């Protein structure tokens, strides 16, 4: 028979855990709303940027073989994988599921004799992949000091990556992040950013709509030179925002589950506690009665 006091302590400790998980759930819900808003507000920018990219790059054919972000450099040797994770834990399968996607890609690329480099954005992802791939992680980005993601944070990361590209440190760049679908569902997403993925519109190109002839100033090439880094930064920005919304969503549902588990546990422990207490009382009564009878 477990000690009644011990049971009481256990119930108290589960209750306090439940308080914490409930509070975390509320905080995550509030942050989620903010993160979703931020993601929504950035959407017109990225959509319009994409349209602009499409209308410029459609007719553009690179004439020289120099490195550029649009068409790549025809080489396919070194891959840079950028992993977006959170800075904090306790968010369910958020970090492990995206890290798993990355790991599968690394295995696949290495099988094809490609050179792989990894950049980790967020501490948790780094913690997960460093044991296995510590030697190919070239950089980590710490976002723990940042409360809400600004465009400049994305720009810093993209500047770094673009510099690496022009220093010929990689040929292709893929980013891995959790796309926010709903509170209970985040989709691990792999997206190629260098060379830029332009929607194939060759079939539609015949329609009048797509054949708008633009005049360019200064000229297509120079505009592209300025536009591509911006476009790249936008992709990173989008990934950061999606990832942070997903993180909060994932944390919210994880904490919701934890709170529910805790209340189940409290229920069963309380039942057990009451039964044990009643058993003790019954036992004492029996002892008194049988003592009285013996006299």
């Amino acid at each position: 028979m477990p000690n009644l006091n011990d049971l009481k302590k256990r119930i108290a400790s589960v209750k306090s855990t439940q308080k914490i998980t409930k509070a975390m759930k509320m905080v995550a819900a509030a942050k989620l709303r903010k993160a979703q808003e931020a993601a929504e507000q950035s959407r017109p920018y990225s959509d319009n940027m994409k349209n602009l990219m499409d209308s410029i790059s459609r007719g553009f054919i690179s004439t020289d073989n120099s490195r550029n972000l649009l068409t790549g450099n025809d080489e396919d040797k070194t891959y840079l994988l950028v992993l977006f994770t959170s800075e904090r834990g306790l968010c369910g399968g958020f970090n492990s599921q995206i890290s798993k996607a990355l790991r599968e890609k690394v295995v696949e690329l290495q099988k094809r004799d490609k050179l792989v480099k990894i950049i980790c954005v967020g501490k948790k992802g780094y913690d997960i992949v460093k044991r296995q791939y510590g030697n190919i992680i070239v950089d980590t980005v710490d976002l723990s000091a940042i409360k809400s993601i600004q465009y400049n944070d994305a720009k810093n990361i993209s500047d770094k990556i673009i510099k690496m590209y022009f220093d010929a440190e990689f040929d292709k760049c893929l980013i891995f992040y959790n796309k926010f679908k709903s509170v209970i569902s985040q989709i691990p997403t792999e997206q190629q950013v260098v060379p830029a993925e332009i929607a194939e519109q060759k079939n539609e190109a015949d329609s009048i709509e797509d054949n708008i002839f633009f005049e360019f100033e200064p000229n297509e090439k120079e505009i592209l030179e300025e536009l591509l880094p911006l476009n790249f930064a936008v992709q990173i920005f989008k990934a950061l925002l999606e990832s942070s919304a997903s993180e909060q969503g994932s944390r919210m549902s994880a904490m919701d589950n934890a709170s529910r588990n805790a209340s189940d546990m409290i229920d069963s422990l309380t039942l057990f506690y009451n039964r044990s207490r009643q058993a003790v009382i019954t036992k004492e009564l029996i002892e008194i009665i049988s003592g009285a009878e013996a006299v």
Partner: protein
Amino acid sequence: MSEIFSIKLVTPSKIFLEANASLVTVPATEGDIGFLANHVSYISSVRPGFISINLENGGEQKIYITEGFAQFNANNLLIIAVELIEKEDLDSNFINQKITDLKNILATNNSNIKIQNKIDSLKSLSL
């Protein structure tokens, strides 16, 4: 009354302005361009400066742009910029700070003519 067309100014954090205008002057890289309704389809990069917008109701609005792109198509003018600020909210410290930042980039990135041009256009701004 001159014809009007729709304009949209977007930054990464929000849609800055959506309105109808009769004339918009944009500081493009190779000189200012004035957009009137039914302008030919056009894409241009933008240098630091002020976008001036003659609104449909006759009002005029001036907005500072650090850099970005303008696209005109089918009576829609779209301006994509990293940073947009109302002229009234701007002070000279901000401009000076931008110039210093660019000079720092210029120092590490030896003699980039584009950055030099940006500094020049920032310097010529009058508040």
